[in-house]
């Protein structure tokens, strides 16, 4: 794989251009809609919708004989929608719970889709759609008009999102309150779900039905780590989605024998991983660092306090105390050596003999100040 070469080709090579654009757009749209899905606890619904889309694609081909993106996408969207309605219906009218309904619809629809695919595969080769590219995605098959379809549909989705931004925000945060204000909550829910279905469907050709759900969840989950504001989260999520899409598509085009879907998903997963670790505030790495810093500060204060107590007992501030004594007093909350070094640097203690330490006058003052503080806290 030749990376500089890849970037050059990006502009020269038509296929690569299409691939990059298609992937970028699906990344953006799914990142944006995925933010709402994740916030509304519909992460796995994306999985359901994308699996359920498979028989829709197959049926669309069987009925229209056409491989055009638009026809297949419409079939996918219809099937995805029907699947969603079935899930809701099952939950509402039976004892079966949401997760079971989801898994049921997902696997049954997908199984049916595979039946149709194997049926189609027996048909004369010329008409065979190579529909199995929809399983794991094959970005290399994106034509200009496919990309245009993706672009237009994606654009419409984003426009709707902008138009109803505050309504979607409200309904996602507090449905009951939205209702009390007079908003048609059910309609808004249907609209938002429809936008989600469309955004999933435009990504199926590139990422495939099996893995598409990750593109709904991963960019949003990653973006959430970087910000506490919805607008920024959605924007960042879109950027992450585009990043994952483009890099995944390019890598899979450059390397041989790797389907696009898994590559994109891996790129997205890497983004999530680093976001979880490194994002300021929420980042786990920073959390650990902060914890360490806090712990050390506490240990240092404890050692200072211990020296103070010892000094009070001996009535000679200058009397040195061995490090063993300090370690015993610290019982198990180690770091005594480190604390002493830090205190020495601050001029609060000094070494009076071999491995013996005592407070300096400044150290005494500081210890007194701290002990007053501690006594004041309830």
């Amino acid at each position, binding site marked *: 794989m030749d990376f500089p070469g890849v970037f050059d080709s990006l502009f020269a090579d038509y296929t690569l251009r299409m691939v990059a654009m298609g992937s970028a757009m699906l990344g953006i749209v799914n990142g944006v809609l995925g933010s709402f899905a994740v916030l509304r606890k519909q992460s796995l619904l994306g999985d359901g919708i994308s699996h359920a889309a498979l028989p829709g694609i197959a049926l669309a081909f069987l009925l229209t004989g056409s491989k055009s993106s638009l026809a297949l996408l419409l079939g996918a969207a219809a099937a995805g929608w029907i699947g969603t309605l079935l899930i809701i219906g099952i939950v509402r009218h039976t004892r079966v719970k949401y997760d079971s309904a989801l898994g049921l619809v997902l696997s049954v629809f997908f199984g049916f889709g*595979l039946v149709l695919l194997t049926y189609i595969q027996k048909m004369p080769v010329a008409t065979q759609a190579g529909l199995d590219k929809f399983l794991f995605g094959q970005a290399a098959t994106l034509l200009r008009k496919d990309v245009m379809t993706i672009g237009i549909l994606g654009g419409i989705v984003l426009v709707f999102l902008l138009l109803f931004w505050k309504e979607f925000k409200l309904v996602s945060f507090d449905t009951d309150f939205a209702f009390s204000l007079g908003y048609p909550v059910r309609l808004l829910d249907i609209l938002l779900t429809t936008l989600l279905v469309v955004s999933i469907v435009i990504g199926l050709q590139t990422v495939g039905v099996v893995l598409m759900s990750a593109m709904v969840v991963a960019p949003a989950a990653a973006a959430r780590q970087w910000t506490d504001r919805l607008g920024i989260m959605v924007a960042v999520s879109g950027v992450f989605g585009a990043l994952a899409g483009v890099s995944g598509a390019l890598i899979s085009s450059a390397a041989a024998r790797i389907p696009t879907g898994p590559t994109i998903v891996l790129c997205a*997963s890497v983004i999530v991983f680093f976001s979880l670790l490194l994002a300021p505030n929420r980042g786990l790495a920073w959390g650990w660092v902060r914890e360490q810093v806090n712990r050390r500060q506490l240990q240092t204060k404890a050692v200072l306090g211990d020296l103070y107590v010892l000094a009070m007992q001996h009535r000679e501030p200058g009397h040195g105390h061995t490090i063993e004594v300090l370690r015993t007093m610290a019982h198990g909350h180690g770091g005594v050596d480190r604390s002493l070094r830090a205190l020495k640097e601050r001029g609060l203690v000094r070494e009076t003999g071999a491995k013996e330490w005592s407070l300096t006058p400044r150290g005494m003052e500081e210890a007194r100040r701290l002990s007053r503080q501690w006594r004041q806290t309830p």
Partner: protein
Amino acid sequence: MTAAQIEIQLIACVVAVACALPGCFLILRRMAMMSDAISHSILVGIAVGFFVIRDLASPLLVVSAALTGVLTVSLVEILTRTKRVREDAAIGLIFPALFSIGVILISRYAGDVHLDVDAVLLGELAFAPFNRLSVLGYDIGPKGLYLIGGILLLNLLFILTFYKELKLATFDAGLAGALGFSPAVIHYALMTIVSITAVGAFDAVGSVLVVALMIAPPATAYLITDRLSYLLAASSLIGVICAISGYWLAHALDVSIAGSMATMTGIFFVATFLAAPDRGLAAIFLRRARQRVEFAQTMLLVHLYNHEGLPGEQKENHLAHLHEHLKWEPPFAGRIVGAAERKGSISRDGDHLFLTERGREAAMRAMVG
């Protein structure tokens, strides 16, 4: 039927039962989607195991894949515990990542081996009879059958041995914990069983059907019963029926066996949903119509009782008031009033309604009960 056909159906039935058993617990514990997650992510376990062992038929693959299943569950838990990501999102992040790694490994490095991506999804049930197991020179049947048969026995053993603990942990986790059964241990044991079953079934039917068989038959059974023992038995039976009918459907149309079986589980669910006695949709609608009338009668009595002896009673017990305030259409109101009169609960004086002693008793019973 040829011997091969019988063998295929046999394997399919065994797979169905082996999946239905842990599946019951999954749906009861609201962890159905874990089956989806595990069945996808064990692919990477299979891939890595294959690269190490270099033998596709080795039972050690079961171990490596089962470990991956447990790994998946652990990762989800760890991720959820950081509180940065909710549980459903955690599932949706982990299994696609693992599955992608698996697909890439297989596509790139094992493309020439009979471990290709379609097999992953669909299984190779049609080829199962060709993979024989021979002991001491005797051909005793298809390998797949013994593998999944062994797993079925394992599942049965697990459930029978720990039946009480599983039942308690599923229905009352708090009590289980108080009694000393660690729900966490049971949880992980169950997930291990699910992983092992998924691996065993994988070979025969692929990841799609594993999920369908683990969820759909138990969900269908759940429509008609909620007793654990009945659930286990019914879902196994339903699974078997779907397996066999699915096979014949695939045979007739010459399509994917696994796909047809999955489709049949769906069809059975819908059929049960519509037709089940008591809980099916048809039964519910019929009952609702009848209940509406009974409920309305009780409402009428309660309404009359509440206003009896108070100022405003004359207004409240007037027939016209029923339309306004109880929101009953005149024909419906007439029906209810008529039925109540016939029952002897109310008496009528022109357009005013009054409770009889019987009606009063019924009203009080309704409000206290």
